């Protein structure tokens, strides 16, 4: 029973800290913008024993924004471990400065955010996962050259943890 409580309470705390962070003001974040997928491609070809968790999202995508606190929580939970969490924003080029950067600051995002603006999605989507239709959110986890991919959202922090751990076996 106590475990159940633990699993329920963590996302609630995350949500609370998320809401609390909305009021804070911080310096403008800088994000790397990749206009060509090739520049970002090495991220999806890593063969080492670091666990790479890559989430595709955008500020305008409601289910993406809803699950962001899980990724932030995971970022805290795995700090000090060989786990990298990268949030790949697919925001439109003209909304990076006007919308994405203020969003990162407002929510005080800790996980690394990069932007992919390469419009030729038909060329790069299959290089990430052959069974990805292109809908976001979508997340992959890669470790030791093994990739797992999910098109769709995580319903809970536990779902995300299970997904990340699924590459650790």
């Amino acid at each position, binding site marked *: 029973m106590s*475990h159940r409580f633990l*699993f329920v309470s963590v996302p609630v705390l995350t949500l609370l800290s998320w809401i609390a962070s909305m009021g804070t003001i911080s310096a403008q974040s800088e994000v790397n913008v990749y206009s060509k997928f090739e520049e970002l491609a090495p991220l999806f070809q890593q063969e080492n024993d670091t666990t790479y968790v890559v989430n*595709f999202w*955008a500020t*305008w*995508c*409601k*289910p993406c924004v809803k699950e962001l606190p899980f990724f932030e929580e995971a970022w805290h939970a795995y700090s000090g471990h060989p786990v990298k969490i990268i949030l790949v924003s*697919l925001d*439109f*080029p*003209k909304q990076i400065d006007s919308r994405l950067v203020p969003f990162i600051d407002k929510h005080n995002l800790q996980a690394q955010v990069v932007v992919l*603006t390469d*419009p*030729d*999605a*038909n060329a790069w*989507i*299959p290089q990430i996962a052959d069974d*990805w*239709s*292109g*809908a*976001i*959110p979508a997340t992959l986890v890669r470790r030791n050259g093994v990739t797992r991919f*999910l*098109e*769709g*959202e995580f319903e809970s922090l*536990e*779902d995300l*943890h*299970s*997904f990340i*751990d*699924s590459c650790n076996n």
Partner: protein
Amino acid sequence: MSRFMLLIGLLFFAGLTAEANVDPGYKVGDKATDFKLKNVDGKMVSLSDYKDAKGFIIIFTCNHCPFSIAYEDRIIDLHRKYAPKGYPVIAINPNDPSVQPDDSFDAMKSRASEKGFPFAYLMDEGQRVYPQYGATRTPHVFILDKQRVVQYIGAIDDNHSDAAAVTKPYVEQAVDALLAGRAPEETFTRAVGCTIKAKK
């Protein structure tokens, strides 16, 4: 022990949800179903109503999704160019308005009137049509020929953010090929889009 079991249980559950995929929908070459859905003008619309059509450009799209919005003008242009040649656009909003209120029937009516949509903009009430087709995102195009055989599935073109920078107008190329009596060269493409909002 209990924690370990719980973890195993969660992994098992995650595996189940990942693998319990329903029918993935149509592939190129499959025969598509007809439907009867409500248009923004209040009338029910079926493919069989289009007596003179040589085929259809069916686009699952919606009000709220920025990718759909980015393509609105291009969807209008597609209809203006190809409806006179026998390939009308039929737009279908697959989203459940209880999940995404911006995609309600009233909101669809407003948007269609603001933009002057020249094509049918239908509500997939009950969300039974989009899973049959296998639409997963908005916008998501299915081109059918006269026999309702699926000839193309995918993106409208290769540049959502800049219509002027398009190098591959996939839908135009596919319809042009069909009008010339040829099979489209590209029959399946992918694009970033919004997930379809299913009733919870």
